[in-house]
């Protein structure tokens, strides 16, 4: 056995704290180590060439690369070894950067520790076995969770490549947040005008299936073969029979406030949330529907309504419809679940959410929309009068570690500028005041847009925080400071619009656990790499797009949607999927057939098989691993008392050898 040890300086990232030459010198004397050297950037092309050359010239048969975390370059060096004719699984990474040079300052201590880390890696590599990649078939379909602009764009891209794609949307229509916007910055196209054609495209594509009123119930399996249970909640209207004529909701006698319109308007108990809904099929809100409340009332003595059913000429109304669980298989999953708004009721200075005329940006969007609840008028919700003086407050919930979230929500500066502009367009006499901390307008034509709002639309920008808001004489008094002039300011406003930040939806944790993808302290899904793999997750076959990963505007959401689609399509285009061979393996001679591994496997990847035992002259049961299903977690290896089952790549021998080298 001839082991080669290659130590990376990583510029000065490693060599500043670790004496790499000393590491090379000491480790070259370890048993089985045949060659040891250092290089400035081992991952660079010349670095890799150096490794390949050493392998050939020195006849090395396995290598240890001492560099950064294996999550970054393990693949790089495995490929490099393979190109030099060594089995790629005879490579180990000693993480002397993240786990050593970056966390220690004392050079002597860090060098000693680095030597130890390398010794462990050498011990492990000495017990590595050459492994061969396995291949599994791919289910050539994509699941998209969430039917907002991100999900829609992803579906369009995948359908364009002629692969089947399914959108699962919680609401009764796709469209998401964007469907609720009036105009979009910085170009001021109307959101509906650019979204509706996309919604129509997906709904008409033969490759796209849309499940609305649906949620993910359970996810199992792995890349190439995800098994997903989807709950289709009872819509009470048959999607195949309904023509969208609208007779039912015209007739429905119940009026309740419309969530879609931020409760600024009313809708019926059977309704479509907005005129361009896709599918254009109403849904019955069973909580408020008279038929259901009569049915649920004790004894059912109350007379049931049933008007919608009577009026429907197509027999589409089905009061008896039940939730339905469907199970489908997918090769890849794109998560596009979007965001929710920060709840500003935690802020006492903004009135704890109790003033009617203190609203959020989304309220403003609905009011500004000509098809919205106010017909495009910016009004005071308290009395319906048109608002003239409007104060906008930015960073509500964002950039606030105490009560909100620590991050910048990225879009609030821009949407507030847009609101200030729209206000002026809707009412020439209106005046916008904007309280801001910093203006963040980093995007194409964004800064120009803000400038225009200030210069041409006369919006008054005040740098500072609002200290208090209160009602007085039918006005909202806003007190704050302009930190640039140092003046205390008091504005008698008709309306206050809070630029509430974007936060993760509360259900993200549950979804993350179902999908086995990580999320951060803000419950935003974590990408595989913040820079180099922003739409991937660490779970292969699951991709992220839109604001569920971090706050994004529409162009960024669309861009990440297309990026995620390309990643998913890249998978689907393979004939079969390469699978890491780091999976469980059974030694039948040692197996007693006790079934502990079968019970303990989280993936049901182990079956029992009856074999003929020649020595015992009888039939007996032994465990057998289903290779395509095994994920290599290794739980089976521990429940197996006789160590008959082991994990390739993290085998008992490898780990025990590492411990020995401690």
């Amino acid at each position, binding site marked *: 056995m001839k082991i080669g040890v290659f130590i990376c300086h990583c510029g000065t990232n490693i060599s500043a704290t670790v004496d790499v030459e000393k590491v090379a010198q000491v480790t070259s004397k370890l048993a089985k180590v045949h060659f040891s050297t250092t290089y400035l950037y081992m991952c660079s092309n010349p670095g890799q060439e150096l490794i390949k050359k050493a392998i050939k010239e020195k006849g090395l048969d396995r290598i240890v690369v001492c560099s950064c975390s294996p999550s970054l370059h393990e693949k790089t060096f495995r490929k490099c070894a393979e190109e030099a004719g060594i089995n790629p699984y005879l490579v180990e990474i000693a993480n002397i950067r993240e786990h050593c040079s970056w966390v220690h300052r004392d050079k002597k*201590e860090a060098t000693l520790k680095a030597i130890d880390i390398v010794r462990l890696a050498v011990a492990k590599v000495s017990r590595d076995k050459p492994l061969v990649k396995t291949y599994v078939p791919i289910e050539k379909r994509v699941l998209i969770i969430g039917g907002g602009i991100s999900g829609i764009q992803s579906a369009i891209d995948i359908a364009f490549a002629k692969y089947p794609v399914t959108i699962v949307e919680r609401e009764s229509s796709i469209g998401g947040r964007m469907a609720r916007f009036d105009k979009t910055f910085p170009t001021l196209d109307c959101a509906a005008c650019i979204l509706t054609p996309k919604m129509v495209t997906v709904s008409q594509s033969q490759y796209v299936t849309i499940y609305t009123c649906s949620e993910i119930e359970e996810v199992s399996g792995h890349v190439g073969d995800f098994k997903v249970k989807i709950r289709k909640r009872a819509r009470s209207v048959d999607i195949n029979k309904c023509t969208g004529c609208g007779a039912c909701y015209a007739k429905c006698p119940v009026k309740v406030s419309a969530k879609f319109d931020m409760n600024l308007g009313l809708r019926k108990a059977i309704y479509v949330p907005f005129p361009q809904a896709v599918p254009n099929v109403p849904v019955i809100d069973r909580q408020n529907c008279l038929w259901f409340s009569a049915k649920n009332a004790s004894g059912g003595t109350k007379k049931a309504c049933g008007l919608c059913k009577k009026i429907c000429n197509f027999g589409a109304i089905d009061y008896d419809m039940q939730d339905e669980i469907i199970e489908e298989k997918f090769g890849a999953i794109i998560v596009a679940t979007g965001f929710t708004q920060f709840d500003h009721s935690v802020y006492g200075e903004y009135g704890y959410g109790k003033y009617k005329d203190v609203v959020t940006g989304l309220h403003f969007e609905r009011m500004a929309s000509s098809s919205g609840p106010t017909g495009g008028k910016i009004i005071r919700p308290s009395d319906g009068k048109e608002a003239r003086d409007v104060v906008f407050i930015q960073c509500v919930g964002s950039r606030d570690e105490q009560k909100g979230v620590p991050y910048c929500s990225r879009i609030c500066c821009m949407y507030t500028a847009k609101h200030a502009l729209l206000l002026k367009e809707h009412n020439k006499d209106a005046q916008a005041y904007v309280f801001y901390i910093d203006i963040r307008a980093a995007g194409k034509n964004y800064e120009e847009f803000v400038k225009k709002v200030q210069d041409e639309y006369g919006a008054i920008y005040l740098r500072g925080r609002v200290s208090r808001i209160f009602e007085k004489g039918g006005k909202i008094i806003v007190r704050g400071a302009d930190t640039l002039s140092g003046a205390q300011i008091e504005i008698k406003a008709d309306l206050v619009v809070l630029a509430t930040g974007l936060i993760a939806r509360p259900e993200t944790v549950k979804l993350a656990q179902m999908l086995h993808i*990580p999320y951060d302290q803000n419950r935003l899904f974590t990408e595989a790499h913040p820079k180099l793999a922003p739409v991937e997750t660490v779970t292969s076959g699951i991709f992220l797009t839109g604001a569920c990963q971090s706050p994004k505007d529409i162009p960024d959401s669309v861009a990440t949607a297309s990026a995620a689609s390309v990643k998913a399509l890249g998978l689907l285009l393979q004939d079969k999927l390469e699978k890491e061979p780091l999976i469980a393996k059974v030694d039948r001679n040692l197996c007693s057939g006790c079934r502990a591994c079968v019970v303990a496997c989280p*993936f049901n990847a182990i079956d029992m098989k009856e074999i003929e035992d020649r020595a015992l002259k009888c039939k007996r049961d032994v465990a057998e691993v289903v290779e395509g299903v095994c994920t290599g977690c290794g739980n089976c290896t521990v429940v197996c008392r006789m160590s008959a089952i082991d994990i390739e790549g993290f085998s008992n021998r490898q780990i025990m050898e590492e411990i020995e080298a401690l």
Partner: protein
Amino acid sequence: MINPRTQELKNSRAESWEPKIAAFLCNWCSYAGADLAGTSRREYPPNIRIIRLPCSGRVNPLFVLKCLMDGADGVLIAGCHTGDCHYSEGNYYARRRFAILKKLFEFLGIDPRRFQMAWVSASEGDKWVKVVKELVEEIKKAGPILAKS
């Protein structure tokens, strides 16, 4: 009684003893959390030696035993928080296993400070640093394992 290797270790460490601690980290949460501590340049004591495993459910009690018997002054197992396991359930099994082992060790006279477990997620670089610092402190108080045998 003591094999030559451990005897040699014992001698070499008699004077300026610094604890040596073996840490089994799951690849997906805790190893990534330790990586994050590195990328955020958070300093911590150099006494820890990390063994990367796919999951905390991969840690065999016999590994822990081997560490302690071979002269590690302490052993740490770190994995994903419950519910967050990359393999959905591995850490639940580990939790049960090591609840028993920890109690058994204490029953047999092994200082409970020497064998610890922690949940460290991929975003908890700070927690990793805190866990290591506390652990090293506690093991320093517990003293060298071989001196006790």
